[in-house]
């Protein structure tokens, strides 16, 4: 089905003349003046930037024809809470988030973030505030459900998370849907001094969906941010995640897992900006690509001139399960300080032939051995999720996506026997 849909779009393309998706400016009556001004600025920015083309370095490996050549109409889905908020957390309206909403994500060079800022449904924006000192007893789950609209629809979900001083919380954003939809989402996250936030993004939209998500994180002194970015769905999905370590002692850990099959295209771009001294970052992204899918990892680590004692480790590992699958991996270090520890490494390969033979030599069939090794490769990213209910859910979803992994799903827990 998804492949037929894409083929049909290609026919339209050859008959048509250039981009067909022309977003229109929208008015949101009753909004505060500052928000209206921000939207006008953002739309102007979008108009001058236009949609990226392959000539843009940041979109070199990800063509946008299947986004820009579809006349998407406006969809109505927006972020919503899966259940009532635990105590210590509350929702704000855009009017109550002046000076914060729209201040974390830069849209100067990001057409999608600009478009989202201009067009997000103000009433539907989800603005979450974690009270200073609050330690949330359970994770907050935000669902962004694109549903199954009859025609091709686009929406602009907007999330802002304000983690108060020394608060501890876990927030899940879960992107689902079953139709031909285009989600252009923006999530802004601000961590006050000493805040600890675990953010999990689980993207399992339909294989006909297009998904572009900009996540911008601003960290104050002594804060700790952990991201789990799991991409399983969509024909084309791109996540741009940037974290600014803007105060001494700030730490971030970015974990990513993208699992592609068929003709899926999964693109992950991260920027970690060590803007102050004594900051630490850890990054591990893993790709598992099957069929004729394509994965992209582009990870930038910036160390500003005065950000001495930066400690950064970036790792990208990719597993190709078929001859047609492909991953482009680009680590980029921009280091302007001299007293720093920065390491990065990238590997792309197939299942380890020696390990495969070892398992088979003990009587385990080849398909089961492959599934076991694939699961083991992917599962260590899922294992890093600290909230057990979320970890189990991610493992369950993985089990359904990895070839033959259901049987191997218990392989990594020591007490499996």
């Amino acid at each position, binding site marked *: 089905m998804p492949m037929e849909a894409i083929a049909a779009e290609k026919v339209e393309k050859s008959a048509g003349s250039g981009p067909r998706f022309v977003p229109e400016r929208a008015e949101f009556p009753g909004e505060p003046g500052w928000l209206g001004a921000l939207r006008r600025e953002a739309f102007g920015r979008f108009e001058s930037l236009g949609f990226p083309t392959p000539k843009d370095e940041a979109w070199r490996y990800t063509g946008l024809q299947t986004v820009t050549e579809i006349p998407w109409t406006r969809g109505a889905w927006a972020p919503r809470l899966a259940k009532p908020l635990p105590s210590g957390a509350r929702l704000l309206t855009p009017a109550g988030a002046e000076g914060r909403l729209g201040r974390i994500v830069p849209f100067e060079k990001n057409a999608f973030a600009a478009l989202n800022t201009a067009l997000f449904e103000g009433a539907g924006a989800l603005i979450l505030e974690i009270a200073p000192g609050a330690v949330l007893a359970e994770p907050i789950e935000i669902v962004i459900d694109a549903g199954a609209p009859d025609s091709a629809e686009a929406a602009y979900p907007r999330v802002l998370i304000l983690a108060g001083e020394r608060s501890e919380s876990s927030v899940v954003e879960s992107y689902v849907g079953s139709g031909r939809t285009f989600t252009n989402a923006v999530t802004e996250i601000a961590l006050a001094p000493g805040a600890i936030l675990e953010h999990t993004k689980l993207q399992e939209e339909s294989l006909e969906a297009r998904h572009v998500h900009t996540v911008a994180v601003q960290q104050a002194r002594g804060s700790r941010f952990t991201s789990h970015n799991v991409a399983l769905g969509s024909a084309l999905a791109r996540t741009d995640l940037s974290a600014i370590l803007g105060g001494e002692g700030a730490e971030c850990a970015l974990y990513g897992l993208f699992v592609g099959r068929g003709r899926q295209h999964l693109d992950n771009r991260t920027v970690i900006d060590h803007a102050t001294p004594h900051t630490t970052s850890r990054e591990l992204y893993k790709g598992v690509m099957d069929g004729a899918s394509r994965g992209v990892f582009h990870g930038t680590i910036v160390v500003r001139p005065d950000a001495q004692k930066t400690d950064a480790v970036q790792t990208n590992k990719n597993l190709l399960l078929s001859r047609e699958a492909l991953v482009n991996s680009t680590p980029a270090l921009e280091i302007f300080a001299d007293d720093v520890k920065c390491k990065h490494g990238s590997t792309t390969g197939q299942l380890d032939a020696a390990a495969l033979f*070892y398992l088979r030599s003990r*009587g385990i*069939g080849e398909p089961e051995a492959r599934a076991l090794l694939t699961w083991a490769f992917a599962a260590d990213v899922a294992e890093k999720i600290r909230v057990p209910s979320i970890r189990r859910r991610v493992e369950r979803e993985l089990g359904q996506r990895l070839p033959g992994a259901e049987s191997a799903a218990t*392989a990594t827990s*020591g007490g499996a026997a």
Partner: protein
Amino acid sequence: MANSPFLEIHNLHASVAGNEILRGVELTVNRGEVHAVMGPNGSGKSTLAHVLAGRPGYTVTEGKVLYKGQDLLAMAPELRAREGVFLAFQYPVEIPGVSNVYFLKAAVNAIRKHRGLPEYDAMEFLALVRQKAKLVEIDEDLVKRPVNEGFSGGEKKRNEIFQMALLDPALAILDETDSGLDIDALRIVAGGVNQLRSPERSMIVVTHYQRLLNYIVPDFLHVLVEGRIVRSGGKELALELEEKGYAWLEKEPPPSVGVPAGAH
């Protein structure tokens, strides 16, 4: 079939990456016998072990191997294992992310299923693990860790023999099981192997040094040089090798093809 030898290797030629390593191996092993295969570096000892286990990349160019009367070389590695062939690796593979205990339960149950036996549940399997772990003095903690990951050389070799005890093979091939072991570890590993000796189990013990054969005393010993077995005899041959080295055999012409090297 009952009268045919347990394992018959005839004129076995095999190459790795285009280089011919085995050049006409003849060997017969009967049920319950322990055969040692010795030879200098590069003689083809490990190649023989891997060819018998079915390692991809090892190409048999000529000859045949009959195992319980069946064509062993036509069988996939997992089928050989289920039929009772076990290779103790010289270099056991580390598999991060897969717990030893899960891996072993999957292996034991694959073999039991093949033999028409009911699969073990978690409790039954853990009981079996406890019983067999004692054999090679392996720490139960190691059993729960990822397969071989971070194991010392001695722990890896003990894990191999532990696996052998769990999988209960009819033909165990030990590839340089003594390499890298200190004398205490060697004693433990050899002790485990000796406890697994039985009239129902045959073994091929591949080793470079005579030292291992002080602990695992073979019924027969063969010397492999340049891909052929050039001398066969009893365990006393090991002492002769210890005294003279391999050089005196390398100079001798190979025996004529067709003479079974293994005694019956």
